[in-house]
């Protein structure tokens, strides 16, 4: 048996990768060894470029009013009782890389509860489940590309990448643009989390400015007196879209 990986080992690797030039897009490289699960799950061959202006991926799935219900964006109202935790709102805009709003598209979120536990059988660490919190929400962006969720602040939680590995608190986001090429799944973090430097998943974004784009901003004016704290997080989707879509929508 080899010694279990320590945080210091991971810290050393994170520092080593931080010295490499970041990817031009700011997306993490898929072969990022400090996050051990990447080792066997990243392709080693170069991606094949597609230049076809008729490519199906330049269009994408559409969603509408039938795909959501009005309560879906309030994660505190999905059960008979109130969930435990610090009530927050998270709002922002979804934009394409030209800065245009992404309208009427699906935003999905999922998260741990206030104790850092997911409602998932594979999360079996000793933190309580909350019978009044599932942790799943969805909504459509409005004509300005805006979305909004009411939820509770998720807790940090342990994982088994190495000994004493803890994920900073985060909310998972899944986003669609007008094209399948703009698909994005990512995670939103909370400002000032002391776990940032220890987390190989966040640190896989090796460019500091790009990493900052994953951190929401606390905006006092968005807090609601006696009710909730307000966070703002804008999202910019990468990837090209069909020209006719850009003109037509």
């Amino acid at each position, binding site marked *: 048996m080899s010694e279990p990986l320590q945080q210091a080992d991971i810290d050393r690797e994170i520092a080593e990768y931080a010295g490499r030039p970041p990817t031009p897009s700011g997306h993490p490289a898929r072969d990022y060894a400090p996050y051990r*699960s990447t080792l066997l799950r990243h392709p080693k061959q170069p991606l094949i470029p597609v230049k076809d202006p008729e490519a*199906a991926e330049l269009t994408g799935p559409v*969603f509408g009013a*039938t795909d959501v219900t009005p309560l879906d964006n309030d994660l505190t109202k999905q059960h008979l009782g109130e969930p435990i935790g610090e009530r927050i709102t998270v709002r922002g805009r979804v934009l394409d*890389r030209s800065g245009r709003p992404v309208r009427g598209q699906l935003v999905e979120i*999922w998260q741990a509860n206030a104790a850092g536990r997911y409602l998932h059988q594979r999360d079996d660490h000793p933190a309580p489940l909350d019978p009044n919190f599932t942790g799943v929400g969805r909504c459509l962006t409005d004509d300005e590309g805006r979305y909004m969720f009411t939820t509770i602040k998720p807790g940090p939680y342990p994982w088994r990448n190495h000994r004493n590995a803890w994920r900073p608190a985060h909310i998972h986001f899944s986003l669609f643009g007008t094209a399948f090429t703009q698909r994005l799944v990512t995670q939103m973090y909370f400002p000032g989390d002391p776990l940032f430097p220890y987390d190989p998943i966040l640190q*896989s974004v090796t460019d500091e400015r790009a990493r900052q784009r994953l951190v929401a901003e606390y905006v006092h004016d968005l807090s609601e007196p006696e009710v909730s704290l307000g966070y703002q997080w804008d999202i910019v989707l990468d990837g090209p879209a069909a020209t006719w879509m850009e003109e037509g929508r």
Partner: protein
Amino acid sequence: MNPTPSQTVGPFYGYALPFPGGGDIALGGIAVHGYVYDGAGDPVPDALLEFWQADENGELRGAPGSLRRDPTNGAVLGRNGVVFTGFGRVGTDQDGHWALRTVRPGNGYISVCVFARGLLHHLYTRIYFGQDPFLDSVPAERRHTLLAEQERDGVYRFDIHLQGEKETVFLDFG
């Protein structure tokens, strides 16, 4: 503008993203199925695949209603079985297996987006059902990784290898 960086879908999306009927884009057509494997040749039980495709006539407009909800109780009703939405979403099972029921797209291929724990940025590939000019731009020895293999009438097999000797061709749209 600078894009928001990708992060892994992680292991816990299972109660959030998959939905009933997610693999039933259309019934009465073909079935496509396969396994997702890692670089050691082991099946990946926590991958999530998304599919986007044209209808039988090659029409790529799509339609809402893949995740249709019941407004009385919020439950997911899923597709109404009439409208072709063009979108599918399937998680791999404990054996790393997935299955999709759909129609053969008029433009020749189904677009696939792969998410998984351990994959920091999703990957795109395509399922082709026969020869296509695009395949000529792919190195000859890897071309077969984009071609579904017909197992029997109406049933096609398409495995995805994230890494290794059989590594699937993944695509970059720039």
